[in-house]
Every structure is written in structure tokens, then in C-alpha cells.
């Protein structure tokens, strides 16, 4: 092997093996589901209600997120204010937040008895019930408004300065500037953002589990869970999982298709951007949007810490046991995810079919965790007690879920390393491990650290497959927290939320920081 002209030959095959493994781990549960329903998938009226509710809440969540994200991104793009960088960084935080912690913070901030309700009560204002459609939409906005704002902000910042100058020298008014510059950006950014957020809202589970529930507010994901844990109707669980997988594949396909080349205005000389700022009214409205969005995003987190810190001392031991279990699982998931994505990335950089192969890894993202979990459960049941395998399956699914994100972080760095170092490395006769170690690794450590941080934080906070499988006596920290909430042991749930929040952020920080230090 070492004498062959292509360097890293072995690694390509290992990478192809990793890809095949990912494909097998994602497709075999889907095939199991399909085989289970070969007698025809039967959906009841209530299942159609779940499909309907899923689409309605996803549509509302997406439209409202985008409607606020556009003015927010614009305000952040054209204003300079104290803490702007922190604000932009904060908009990335919901991504690594454990969903259950965020939902908990949202309930205790905006709920029927939350902080806002307590402040407004003396004035005779009663906050509406948070359980049901508006609670689900509000929680989805918490996660997706900042995501949308970041996507749009990125596009805004890519506007070449030359274009803005040109528009100004032509004397374009607000309307014309919007039509020729801003609309061009939005027209290209909004459709893919819409598709991605719609997809995320359709396949979110933990939000619906806590804030939905009754027949009026059941999503497909929740219906899968209920068919499992309440009815033990595997046929219906498989039918619903098939519907969910199909829906996600279609939406994922649309999202990919709508992702056109990002910049419709061409590139400029990369000079710092100064967008026209508008008059005083614009300044006030920009400030208002930033303030409201800031409070909406920060208040729930402050609430979690405020409520939880006093209860850290007297947390029951099972919370700490669950925390330890979750950390160990997160580390395993991270190791598996890094190992797979590194090999896949090394392979993708040297193959022409890379885009198609990368799409395989997106499968894991597109297909809902509960659909995957259902398939896995049905497979395992034929050979063993699946409940006993809850933790390993959760680790594996978590690793697969983080894979597309880690891959996205690794690929650009690896391509760059390949472009700049490959010739030198070949000239020096570096092969295999040595080549990787000396030519590539130094340039990969930063994205590796970032990717590991993402994978660990996502896995730490995950409440998906584990809810489907888990025995309560082997709970992860998010599941333990849900049980405490369910048993109405609120002070302990508050403490657990703080531990979970701290551990997730800590894991991310340690890996990300480690990557930066050793880079």
C-alpha cells in the first residue's frame, strides 16, 4: 500500500467503510419499519390530526421566527452597540442548549405562573396557558429565531461594500435600496432558511413532549412515542415513523434544492460593511427589536440559573448519578462521532462523488431520531430485551445526529490543508499516519475541538431516543429532569436543570477551548 502513488489509500477505504456504516445504521431501521408495515400502513383519524398539528405548528413557528429574524438581522447588521459581539455569539447558544432546560426556562418565564405573569398580575393581566399550540410555537421560536437571524445576518454581511456605495451614489431611496439590495439577499436566504427551520420544527420531540400532550397538541413524533409507551402498538408506531421519515425526506430535499449559491450580488473586495442606517425612527425600532429579542433569548436562561442554583446542594443522589451517566455517554458519542467523521472527511476530500456521499451523512439529520429509534427497537427486539440496550443505542444515535455538523466543521479545514500541504507532504515522502499527523492534524485541531464540543453538548442534552427506550432506573440527566418535573418536585427539577445547563456548556467549552489551545 505504502508504495502506491495515492497517499492515504488505506484511509480512503476506512472512510468508505465508515460511510457504509453510517448508511447501514440509518437505513436498516428504515427498512425494518417498512418491512413491519408491508401489510399496509393504517392511520387513524387521530393520526391525521397529529400530522395536521405538526404542519400547522411548524408553519407558524417558521413564519414567526423568520418575520422577527429579518428585522433583527438587519438591526444587528447596521448598528454598532455595546455587547454586539456577545449578542451575536449568544444567538448561537440555543443550538447547544439542552431542549428540556430551555423549555423549563420558557415555562418559568412566560408560563401561566411564570415571571412575566407574576410581574403583570398586579395590573390585572393574566398570561394564557402555555401548554398547547402557542407554547410549542413559542419554544420553537426560541430555538429557531436566532438560527434564522444568524443565517440572514451572514448573508447581509456578505453584501459587497461596493454595491452599497454604488446604491448610495445613485441616490437610491429606502424603497429602491430595499428592492435592489436587501430583497436580493432575502430572496436567496429566506427559502432555504424556511425549509430548514420547517424541517427542524417538524421533527422536534422534546418540546412537544413537555408543552404538547393532549389530543389537541400532539405532533407525529409525540404520536410515535405514545404508540410505543402508551398503546404498545408497534404497527402504528411504524406507520407514523414512515410518515415522519417521508415528510422529513421531502422537506430535506426541498431545503437542499433551494440552497442556491449564497451571494447573488457578486463578491467585492471584502471591505467592512456600512449599511445605510436610516433616520431616528429606524434607530429606535432597531433598538427595540434587539432589546425584545435579547430579553426573549436571555430571560429563560437567567431564570434557570436563578431558580436552580439555590437547590444544587440538596439535589438527590440519583440526579448526580444520572449526570455522571450522561457525561460518560456524551464522551462515548463524541468519540464515535469524531472517529466516523474524520475518516469520512478524509475520504470525501479525495473523491469526485463527495457531494452525494456527504448527502448520506445528512440522512441522519433529516430522519427523525424517533423514527430511527423505532426502527432500532424493532430490530433489537427480535434478538434481545431492547430496554437493556437503551444506553448504547442512544449513544449511537447521538453520534449519528452530530455527524453532519462535525463534518461541516471539518471539511473546509481539511480541504484547505489538502490544498496547501499535499504537495509538500508528498515531496517529503510522508505517507499514511505520518502524513496525517504532520501535514493535516495541526490544521484540523481547531475544527475538531469545535466539532467535539458540538457533539458532546448535543448528546448531553438529548431527550429523544432515550425517552422511547429508557428504563427509569437508568435515566440520563435530561430524562431524570423530566421525571422530576412530572412528579412535580420542582425544586429538584430546577437544580437538575442548572446542572444540565452547566455540564452542556462546560463540555462544549472544554473541547472548543482545547482545540484552540493546541492548534
Amino acid at each position: 500500500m505504502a508504495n502506491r502513488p495515492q497517499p492515504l489509500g488505506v484511509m480512503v477505504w476506512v472512510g468508505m467503510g465508515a460511510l457504509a456504516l453510517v448508511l447501514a445504521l440509518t437505513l436498516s431501521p428504515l427498512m425494518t419499519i417498512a418491512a413491519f408495515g408491508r401489510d399496509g400502513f393504517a392511520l387513524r383519524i387521530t393520526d391525521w390530526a397529529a400530522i395536521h398539528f405538526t404542519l400547522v405548528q411548524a408553519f407558524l413557528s417558521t413564519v414567526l421566527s423568520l418575520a422577527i429574524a429579518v428585522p433583527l438581522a438587519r438591526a444587528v447588521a447596521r448598528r454598532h452597540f455595546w455587547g454586539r459581539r456577545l449578542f451575536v455569539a449568544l444567538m448561537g447558544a440555543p443550538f447547544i442548549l439542552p431542549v428540556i432546560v430551555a423549555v423549563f426556562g420558557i415555562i418559568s418565564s412566560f408560563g401561566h405562573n411564570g415571571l412575566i405573569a407574576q410581574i403583570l398580575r398586579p395590573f390585572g393581566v393574566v398570561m394564557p396557558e402555555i401548554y398547547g399550540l402557542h407554547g410549542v410555537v413559542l419554544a420553537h421560536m426560541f430555538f429557531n429565531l436566532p438560527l434564522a437571524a444568524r443565517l440572514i445576518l451572514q448573508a447581509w454581511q456578505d453584501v459587497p461594500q461596493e454595491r452599497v456605495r454604488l446604491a448610495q451614489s445613485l441616490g437610491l431611496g429606502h424603497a429602491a435600496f430595499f428592492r435592489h439590495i436587501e430583497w436580493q439577499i432575502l430572496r436567496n436566504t429566506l427559502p432555504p432558511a424556511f425549509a430548514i427551520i420547517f424541517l427542524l420544527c417538524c421533527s422536534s420531540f422534546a418540546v412537544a413532549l413537555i408543552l404538547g400532550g393532549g389530543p389537541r397538541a400532539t405532533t407525529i413524533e409525540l404520536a410515535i412515542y405514545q404508540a410505543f409507551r402508551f398503546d404498545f402498538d408497534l404497527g402504528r408506531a411504524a406507520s407514523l415513523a414512515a410518515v415522519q421519515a417521508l415528510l422529513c425526506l421531502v422537506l430535506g430535499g426541498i431545503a437542499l434544492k433551494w440552497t442556491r449559491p449564497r451571494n447573488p450580488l457578486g463578491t467585492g473586495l471584502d471591505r467592512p460593511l456600512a449599511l445605510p442606517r436610516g433616520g431616528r425612527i429606524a434607530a429606535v425600532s432597531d433598538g427595540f427589536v434587539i432589546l425584545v429579542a435579547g430579553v426573549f433569548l436571555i430571560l429563560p436562561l437567567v431564570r434557570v440559573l436563578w431558580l436552580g442554583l439555590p437547590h444544587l446542594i440538596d439535589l438527590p443522589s440519583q440526579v448526580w448519578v444520572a449526570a455522571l451517566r450522561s457525561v460518560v455517554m456524551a464522551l462515548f458519542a463524541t468519540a464515535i462521532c469524531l472517529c466516523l467523521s474524520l475518516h469520512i472527511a478524509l475520504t470525501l476530500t479525495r473523491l469526485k462523488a463527495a457531494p452525494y456521499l456527504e448527502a448520506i451523512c445528512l440522512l441522519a439529520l433529516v430522519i427523525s431520531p424517533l423514527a430511527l429509534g423505532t426502527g432500532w427497537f424493532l430490530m433489537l427486539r427480535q434478538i434481545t430485551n431492547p430496554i437493556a440496550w437503551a444506553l448504547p443505542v442512544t449513544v449511537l444515535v447521538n453520534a449519528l445526529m452530530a455527524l453532519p455538523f462535525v463534518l461541516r466543521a471539518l471539511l473546509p479545514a481539511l480541504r484547505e490543508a489538502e490544498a496547501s500541504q499535499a504537495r509538500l507532504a508528498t515531496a517529503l515522502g510522508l505517507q499514511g499516519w505520518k502524513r496525517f499527523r504532520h501535514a493535516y492534524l495541526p490544521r484540523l485541531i481547531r475544527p475538531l475541538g469545535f466539532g467535539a464540543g458540538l457533539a458532546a453538548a448535543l448528546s448531553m442534552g438529548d431527550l429523544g431516543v432515550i425517552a422511547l427506550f429508557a428504563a427509569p432506573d437508568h435515566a440520563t440527566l435530561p430524562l431524570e429532569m423530566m421525571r422530576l418535573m412530572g412528579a412535580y418536585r420542582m425544586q429538584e427539577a430546577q437544580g437538575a436543570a442548572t446542572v444540565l445547563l452547566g455540564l452542556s456548556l462546560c463540555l462544549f467549552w472544554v473541547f472548543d477551548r482545547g482545540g484552540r489551545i493546541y492548534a
Partner: protein
Amino acid sequence: MKHTIIAAGMSVAAGMALADVPVLQVYTYDSFMADWGPGPQVERAFEEICGCDLQFIGAGDGAALLARLQLEGPRSDADIVLGLDTNLMQTARDTGLFVPHGITAPALTLPIQWQDPEFLPFDWGYFAFVHNTDLANPPRNFEDLAASDLRILIQDPRSSTPGLGLVYWIEAAYGSDAARIWEGLSDNIVTVTPGWSEAYGLFLEGEADMVLSYSTSPAYHVIAEEDDSKTAAAFEEGHYMQIEIAGMTAASDQPALARAFLEFMLSPAFQSVIPTGNWMYPAALPASALPEGFDGLIAPETVLHFSAKEAADRRDAAIETWQTALSR
């Protein structure tokens, strides 16, 4: 009965020379094994005589408990499932995951005769809506409740035995008119919780005017908290009765120990914990043995109850009625 326990104890003692203490795993609902529930006392009392390690494992409310056993299938670790009720009994039997207990039950104090090869009762009670005594004009029937703007908390019939009990209660009282009652109730329901604990917790936090629970629940507040501010609304249609049951699994690797536990379950040591632990009527203790706070409870004139077979036949349609009415 004692002989079986002693025999089990001796075989256990013999086994201990070779191996660790045998473990008896009992799957039950969360409030049974809670610190304030009957679980800890039962565990202490049984471990004194069995020479074993009794472990309670919480698996959600009654129906979710059965689903858990089905999820694990024939390879389950459970030896005993405690906390199903007669409404789920036929479904549980049909899974084939339970085996006959072979026990001749002592004299029971249930309102009905008991004869079942697989399941034994451990307590019983009536479903009722619990409210604060200061509630003006508490409803006297479901029609009143549906017409009112009272905020109520109920449980999901697919996961919870009280939730399922309410579905049968309305089914038994109104028959083909049940859908109309549910549609009337749908705007009174604050939320549908997966289990009893969640709903009762929300009620105590002041999130609703009434909660679906038991006619015996006010006794808890009177006896344990010296608080007489809670009462149960007596409904003119009558109240649906629940009989809670336990059975031993086919998957058990400790059948002798499991049988010993079921016998213990009907002995005074277990039964006397029930009134002030699970806040239900014990299945094998005379009424004279009930504590004082049980005197002031409502006593339904009409008792509604479906046989296990009838409940199983009606289950899918009744839940579908509930789901359809509430998803509007």
C-alpha cells in the same frame, strides 16, 4: 400462606450460601414507590421475612406500566407487575406475559366477588373529582361540569388508569351519549397529563379548580396534613369503581419468591399500609380497620363498573371517542 413464605425464605437462605441475596423486581407506578407512598413500608416489611432484596421499579402510570412490560417482552426483568386494574386485566392477560398465581385468596373485602387465575386485587376505590371546599356550586353531574367554566385536570387514558377510568365512567353513565359529554368537557380541560402524580401536583399548585382523582384522596389531606380544605364532588350518575391488581410474570426467574410476595400482598402487614399509604380501600381488611379520616368521605349510591372482558371490548372505541372529541 406462612409456609410458602417460610419455604421461600429457606430456599433463599440455602441459596445465599452459594450466591448473593435473590432480587425480586416489582414494576409499579410512580406514586406507589414514592417516599410518601406505601412502597418503602412494604419493602421493609417483606424484606424482614423473605431474605431477599425487593426492588420497586417505577414505570409511569398503570397503562404505561403494561406497555413497558410489552416493550421488554418475554425477556423482561420484572417478576411482579403491581398497579394494573380490572380495566386493563383482559389486555394484560392476552399478552401471555403473566402466569397463574396458584394462590387461594383469603377473605376479601371488595364490593364484588373475586375469582381470577392470574391476577389478585390489592386495593380499590372510586374515581371522583377533587376540589377545594370553598369552590362555589361544585357540579353534581357531568352535564353540570360540561356546562360550567370550571378548569379541570385529567389524565391520558392511554397511559394512566385514572384517565382510562374516567373514559369508562362516562361510557358507563352515558353510553352512546359519551361523545357529547366529552365535547362539552373539552373546553374545561386545562391539560391532559400522562399520569396521576402530574395532574394532582398541578392541582395542588393551583393550576385548576378540580382534578380527576379518588373519593378517598381528601382523607390524605385530613390525616397526613390535618387539612380539611379538600373534598370530592359526589356525582348523581354514580361513581366508577377501580380495583387495582397485581400479577406474576412468565419471565420471572424467582417464581417462588414472586408467589410469596403475592401472598404477602393480601396479608395484614401489606394491607394495613394501604389506607394511609396509597389512600385507597384495602382489598383484604374490614371497614372497621380503616382510620378515622375515612368516615367523612362520600359514599356513592350507584357503583359503576365494567367486567374485565367488557372493559377490554370497549377500550379502543371508548378511547377513540375521547381522542376525537378532544382533538377538535
